[in-house]
């Protein structure tokens, strides 16, 4: 993975010193709260419901075991011994003190990490596919490009005070596992007929209160022009994006208002001036960065390991875990493993310091010392030998990260919600826990099959509820917490925003409603038909009829007990 050179170190260390000084001035009263806010936000520091929250950047979701151990140490020393992995592949800690933030940043800088631009109206962490570099369906490795974009966007002087936050994702596959169509800029790596690498460029996707799918503005952008083209997009947005209304300030609103054709035309006009400027990428730079993502030292292994096969036959629980949590690798004898952060009874996406340390050890033993964070809020060991899977599974069970449910209903994306976040209208963690408890039968879950269920505690949609087969959104009704349900959403290159089924539900009814939606799906689905396809084929009505029918689960139970 990418290692800092002296320049990268100098820049991150200067930031620590700058923020230490800004914090001190704020504490002395020389910087007002209003003046300090954007400064602390651009260092990932929020003031939340109970305490400050610090969001640590994990560029494109990659961590070394050393970095993971440092994160464990930070949560133990400055927080309450746990952290929350987010859909943008970052880590949030919920209980640091304001005064300790500069020290935390200094600890991060020592291991080539930071919290730069993890919040605020600037270019945020660049995200990508958690299977980058090992996926069989990969066209090109997106990570070097994500790192190049990270450097370009870090302290870009022209784009530090944008109308609103700005998120960029890069995908190296056709299928897209990086949710590029719901980003401000989505970049898809492509190779054209002449064999040249480039990008298809999408803009104006996003969730939040106005969910929109990104629009293509360029089919093929040769790689040399990646940065100048992004600069053109950002300049058009910085100059024309709305600043009068927080809710209409994202680039998606501008793209929608102008129309993507007109927006694209303005970008091309701007780019005509920037094209071939010194910011045009060089072969030397791309090689310098790409070399650092070169494949680890894979051994020559047989495609099938005999001992592994017999374990699969002997141990049903292991076989189930392999079926859901182990993924095909482009190298024979290797696999990628998802370590689940969705174990029932634990908050989705959370990891304790002990788990982080243990995962670091597992990465060292089994996966070349590297870990990835997935946007579905799990951890991935991307280069595990098939012959090591059984031992790894046993170790993962000990640390409660072996829930064999990846891609199933209970592998939910969940934001921290009203328990932590001051923006939230409603809690999301108790809803997640109630659903986990209701669907605790593994056979039933496996029988339902692939189905995403995402929960957001408010319109900001951090839980990506729009993109889930079943999405749950916390809403406020006269001070009470209610939940609106959408169905039929999908992520990936055919991304689709789910439709609201109707009036929202009280918290205690949500598990029943989910059960009814699933019962409808199971009754109606064709052989191997994914949930979203069934919704598309039969429409909302059958789901709606069942979900709002009087015979609630509770009533049924009461009837039985009489």
């Amino acid at each position: 993975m990418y290692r800092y050179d002296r320049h990268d170190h100098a820049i991150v260390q200067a930031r620590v010193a700058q923020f230490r000084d800004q914090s001190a001035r704020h504490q002395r009263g020389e910087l007002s709260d209003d003046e300090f806010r954007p400064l602390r936000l651009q260092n990932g520091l929020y003031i939340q419901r109970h305490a400050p929250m610090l969001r640590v950047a994990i560029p494109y979701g990659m961590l070394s075991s050393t970095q993971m151990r440092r994160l464990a140490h930070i949560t133990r020393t400055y927080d309450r011994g746990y952290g929350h992995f987010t859909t943008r592949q970052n880590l949030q800690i919920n209980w640091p003190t304001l005064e300790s933030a500069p020290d935390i940043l200094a600890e991060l800088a020592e291991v080539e990490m930071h919290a730069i631009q993890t919040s605020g109206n600037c270019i945020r962490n660049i995200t990508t596919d958690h299977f980058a570099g090992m996926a069989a369906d990969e066209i090109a490795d997106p990570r070097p490009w994500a790192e190049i974009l990270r450097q370009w966007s870090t302290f870009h002087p022209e784009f530090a005070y944008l109308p609103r936050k700005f998120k960029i994702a890069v995908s190296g596959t056709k299928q897209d596992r990086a949710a590029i169509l719901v980003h401000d800029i989505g970049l898809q790596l492509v190779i054209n007929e002449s064999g040249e690498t480039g990008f298809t460029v999408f803009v104006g996707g996003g969730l939040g209160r106005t969910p929109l799918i990104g629009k293509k503005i360029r089919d093929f952008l040769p790689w040399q022009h990646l940065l100048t083209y992004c600069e053109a997009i950002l300049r058009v947005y910085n100059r024309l994006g709305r600043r009068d209304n927080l809710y209409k300030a994202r680039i998606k609103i501008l793209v929608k208002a102008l129309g993507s054709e007109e927006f694209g035309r303005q970008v091309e006009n701007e780019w005509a001036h920037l094209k071939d400027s010194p910011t045009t990428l060089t072969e030397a730079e791309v090689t310098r960065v790409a070399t650092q993502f070169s494949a680890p030292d894979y051994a020559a292994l047989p495609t099938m390991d005999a001992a592994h096969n017999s374990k699969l036959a002997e141990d049903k629980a292991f076989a189930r875990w392999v079926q859901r949590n182990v993924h095909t690798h482009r190298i024979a004898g290797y696999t990628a493993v998802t370590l689940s952060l969705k174990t029932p009874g634990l908050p989705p996406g959370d990891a304790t310091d002990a788990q982080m340390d243990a995962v670091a050890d597992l990465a060292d033993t089994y996966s070349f010392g590297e870990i990835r964070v997935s946007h579905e809020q799990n951890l991935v060991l991307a280069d595990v030998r098939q012959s090591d899977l059984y031992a790894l599974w046993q170790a993962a069970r000990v640390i409660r990260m072996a829930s064999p449910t990846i891609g199933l209903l209970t592998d939910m994306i969940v934001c921290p919600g009203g328990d932590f976040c001051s923006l939230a209208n409603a809690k999301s963690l108790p809803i997640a826990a109630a659903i986990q408890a209701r669907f605790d039968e593994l056979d039933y879950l496996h029988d339902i099959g692939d189905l995403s269920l995402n929960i957001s505690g408010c319109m900001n949609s951090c839980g990506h509820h729009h993109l889930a087969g079943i999405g749950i959104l916390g809403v406020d009704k006269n001070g009470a917490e209610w939940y609106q349900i959408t169905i039929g959403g999908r992520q990936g290159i055919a991304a689709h925003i789910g439709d609201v089924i109707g009036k929202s539900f009280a918290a205690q009814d949500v598990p029943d409603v989910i059960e009814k939606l699933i019962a409808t799906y199971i009754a109606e689905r064709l052989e191997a038909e994914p949930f979203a396809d069934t919704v598309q084929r039969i429409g909302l009505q059958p789901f709606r009829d069942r979900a709002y029918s009087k015979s609630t689960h509770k009533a049924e139970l009461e009837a039985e007990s009489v």
Partner: protein
Amino acid sequence: MSEINSLQLIRDRRLVADEWEVVQSDGVSSAPTDAAAGLSLLPLSIWLERRSELLAEKAAAGIRIGVWLAPTDEPSLLAKDLAMLDLIAVHFPKFADGRGYSTASLLRLRYGYTGELRAFGDVGRDQLFYLARVGFDSFLISEGRDAAAALCSFDDFSEVYQSATDQSLPLFRRRAA
């Protein structure tokens, strides 16, 4: 307060007295506290209206001309007159309104303005590093903020990744060298 402490204008990294008075779009002047000679810094609309008259006066009597731009003003409207202007100022109604950074980049890198480029309005110490990078060389620190203390923030970072007005090559081209 001593004389030096009341100076709010930083030019070329030094505190200096301000000679310009800002004229609002409706023609009303608001004199900065340390304005000395009272040169008129005109809004774009007035400049466009009186352009030929002012250019003639400059040719005849050598008057100095300054124009200020609001965040929505199009800097290309000044492009053909840049050599005639003694000062261009860009207004920041709020420091978090970043449009002026693009205005400055365009004036410097696209239209080739080499004269004094000033940031004024809600301008403080923690914006100076970025403002200087995009090409501002003059900063009217807003009232109530310590302009002298702000001077050190130009050196917040010794290295930068991007090319900008202050650095023609991005780090990756300098790294390679």
